């Protein structure tokens, strides 16, 4: 039993590496916020652009969304981090992780918001257009607000799933929670930093999960 606590809950190790993991918490939170904001905004914009039904533009949006949804994010991260320098684009590991995950979330968000736009009844378009609102105004003031309410549950679920993938940054040396913890683990030859990392993830993401549940019940009631 004491070997278990020595391995997973070694107080000396925890005390020594807690500050660096706390720094990692800051990095993970910053990354998550940036990824969610960028991903949801870009995805929503792409879905709006797609609704104009310009054939070539829609084609490229669909190709983007399909590729970024199909590829494992880790493959994209490694490709970008180790591949781009060969063509002269050198990005920090933080930037690579941010860009890749933001684009992956954007691809999913585009599909989700697009589904919301197409699920908004045709009568809403007709009513708005019949009062003189233009296409873009109808989209912005009438259709999109309804579409976004409709897709809040899948969108928040996807956003949480993607932000958890910030842990993948470890493989390219992003100093996020897991990056800091694995470094500490190899220095201390002890798993306690990983335990602390797990606790940190729960502390960060559990409130988000609870928040998403609250959003879902709130907006499903509003829509009825």
């Amino acid at each position, binding site marked *: 039993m004491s070997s278990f606590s020595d391995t997973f809950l070694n107080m000396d190790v925890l005390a020594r590496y807690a500050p660096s993991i706390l720094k990692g918490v800051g990095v993970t939170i910053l990354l998550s916020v940036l990824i969610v904001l960028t991903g949801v905004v870009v995805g929503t914009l792409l879905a709006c652009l797609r609704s104009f039904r310009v054939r070539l533009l829609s084609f490229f949006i669909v190709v983007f969304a399909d590729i970024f949804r199909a590829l494992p994010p880790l493959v994209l991260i490694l490709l970008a981090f180790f591949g781009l320098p060969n063509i002269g684009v050198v990005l920090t590991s933080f930037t690579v992780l941010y860009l890749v995950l933001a684009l992956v979330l954007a691809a999913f968000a585009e599909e989700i918001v697009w589904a919301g736009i197409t699920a908004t*009844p045709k*009568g*809403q378009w*007709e*009513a*708005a*257009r*019949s*009062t*003189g*609102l*233009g296409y873009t*105004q109808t989209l912005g*003031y*009438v259709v999109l*607000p*309804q579409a976004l*309410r409709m897709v809040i549950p899948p969108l928040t679920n996807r956003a949480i799933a993607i932000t958890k993938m910030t842990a993948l940054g470890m493989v390219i040396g992003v100093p996020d929670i897991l990056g800091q913890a694995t470094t500490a683990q190899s220095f201390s030859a002890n798993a306690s930093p990983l335990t602390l990392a797990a606790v940190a993830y729960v502390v960060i993401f559990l409130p988000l999960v609870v928040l998403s549940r609250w959003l879902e019940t709130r907006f499903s009631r*509003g*829509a*009825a």
Partner: protein
Amino acid sequence: MITDRPTLELRGLHKSFGADPILRGIDLSVARGEMVFVLGPSGSGKSTMLRCCNRLEEPDSGEIFVEGKPITGTGVDLNGMRQRIGMVFQSFNLYPHLTALGNVTLAMRRVQKKPRAEAETRALDALDRVGLKAKADSYPAQLSGGQQQRVAIARAMALEPSVMLFDEPTSALDPELVGDVLAVMREVRAEGMAMLVVSHEMKFAREAADRVVFVDGGVIVEQGTPEEVFERPREARTRAFLGRISE
């Protein structure tokens, strides 16, 4: 421009969906303050005709004039034109995320660019006219079907159109809620609007319509006063239709 032309004028309207002709040459006019009822079996083209009047459907050929000005063809300011033509839908189509007040003010603020205070004053006035000023802050889901339709009428009326189109305005309502909507439609007519109504409310048509138009197979089969069309229909198709629905 002073004109003695009708407020709404349709000339030689044709429309096909694919190979199916829906409208085959419709000529119709509605004068200021006139309520014209359009009757006809389903699939007769009456709704399509109505939806051509604000170009929710694009006619294949023919012309439409509102207050003497053409609204068909290219180079028409579609969004400007649509403010002159209010439309009320069978399924109300209120914006569910906005209050009754928000529904009525949206186009005033975003299309007519009225300041919020002015738009709200006008919207409250419009809601008052349909008897729902007290419901200004209610969301559509909190209103009955009849109330929703009256808000929809207020939404169209607030833009001060010269023509109002009603596409089966009471068909989705429970029978006990129909009366309020019809009462509001009488009010609209009293304000001197040109009204084109597609509806199955025969009793209301008899009492309130100035003219009844019977459409079948994409053409106007016959038209006249309610008395003429209901009591002394000239055409066999009209008689057959009226016979079917009075059963």
